[in-house]
C-alpha cells in the first residue's frame, strides 16, 4: 500500500466515522480532492487515478497543422483517466492557465530566436520564467464529455491551429469515433474533408 492508498483509506475511515454508510473509493476521492484543491495538480491526478473508473471517449479531435501542410491530419484521443477526471470534477484546472502557459512558452521561444540564439528548442524551463500557472490553479467543477473535448482541443491542439489560424480551410473538427476510418492503408495521406466549406462557398 503506498501513500496515496493510505490517504484514501484514511478518508474512507473518516467518512464512515462521520456517519456515512457504504463509502466508496469514489466518495473518498471526491472528498479528498476538495481538501487538496490548493495542492499540486499531480497529487490530484494520483488520487483521481486510484478513485475514478477510466472513461473511454466516444469522440476524437482531428486536425491539420498549417505549419506542416504536407503532413497527414492528426487524430487526438482523450486519455480515459483524464476524461474521468474531467467528468468527475475537482481535478483539472481551468483551461485559461494552460493557454497562458502555452503563450508564455511560445513568447520565450520567439524572444530567444529574435536574440539569435541557436538551438533554443531544448532550453526552455519553467523555473527560469517564474513557474507555470496550471499546476497550482484551482480545480474546476465536472464537465460534460462534449465540454471536456472542447477543453482538450484548447489544451492539446497547438494555438496556431484552433486560435490563431486565419486561412479558409477547416483545419480541425471534433468527431464521433465512428467517423475515423478504420482502414489505414493510406493513413499518411489523410486530410480533413473540405466538403462543408465548399458547399458554403458555392451556396
Amino acid at each position, binding site marked *: 500500500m503506498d501513500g496515496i492508498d493510505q490517504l484514501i483509506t484514511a478518508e474512507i475511515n473518516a467518512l464512515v466515522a462521520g456517519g456515512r454508510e457504504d463509502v466508496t473509493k469514489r466518495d473518498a476521492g471526491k472528498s479528498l480532492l476538495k481538501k487538496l484543491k490548493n495542492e499540486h495538480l499531480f497529487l490530484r491526478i494520483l488520487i483521481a487515478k486510484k478513485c475514478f473508473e477510466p472513461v473511454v471517449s466516444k469522440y476524437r479531435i482531428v486536425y491539420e497543422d498549417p505549419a506542416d501542410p504536407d503532413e497527414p491530419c*492528426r*487524430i487526438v484521443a482523450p486519455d480515459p483517466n483524464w476524461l474521468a477526471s474531467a467528468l468527475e470534477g475537482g481535478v483539472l484546472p481551468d483551461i485559461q492557465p494552460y493557454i497562458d502557459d502555452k503563450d508564455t512558452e511560445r513568447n520565450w521561444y520567439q524572444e530567444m530566436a529574435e536574440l539569435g540564439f541557436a538551438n533554443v528548442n531544448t532550453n526552455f524551463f*519553467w523555473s527560469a520564467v517564474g513557474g507555470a500557472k496550471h499546476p497550482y490553479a484551482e480545480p474546476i467543477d465536472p464537465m460534460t464529455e462534449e465540454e471536456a473535448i472542447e477543453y482538450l482541443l484548447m489544451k492539446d491542439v497547438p494555438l496556431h491551429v484552433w486560435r490563431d489560424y486565419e486561412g479558409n480551410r477547416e483545419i480541425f473538427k471534433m468527431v464521433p469515433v465512428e467517423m475515423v476510418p*478504420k482502414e*489505414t492503408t493510406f493513413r499518411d495521406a489523410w486530410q480533413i474533408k473540405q466538403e462543408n466549406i465548399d458547399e458554403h462557398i458555392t451556396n
Partner: protein
Amino acid sequence: MARTVIMDTIKKDESATEMSVDGIVKAFAVIDNGTTPSIEKSLNISSLNDIGIGQRGLNFTSGMNDASYGVVGAIESGADDIHVYRNKTVNGYEARIYDSSSGVEDTPMTTSVLGDLA
C-alpha cells in the same frame, strides 16, 4: 500519519518552482494499436496524438519543468523494431516505432517519463 507520508514525498520546492517528487515515474502510457490507437493504461496523460503510421504523440496533464526529462520506451513485437522519441517539450513528446527493414510501423508500445514537474 498517512498525510505525513504524502507530504514527505510530494512537496513544492520553495527555492525553485519545479515539483520535487523523488523516485516515481511522472507519466506513463500503454498504447494499444487497434484500428484507432488508444491508451490502455496511463498516468498524467491527457491525450494520445495519432500523427501517422508508427508515430504517436503524448500530452501531459501536469507539465514538466523542462524538456530535459528521461523517456523510456518499449515495444511489444519485432526483434528489429526500435522505439525513439523526438520533439520533447514541457507539454509532451512524440514517439516513433521504426522497423529496420520497412521504416515506421504501427505496433503496441509502452512509454514512461522521469524528471521534474513544473
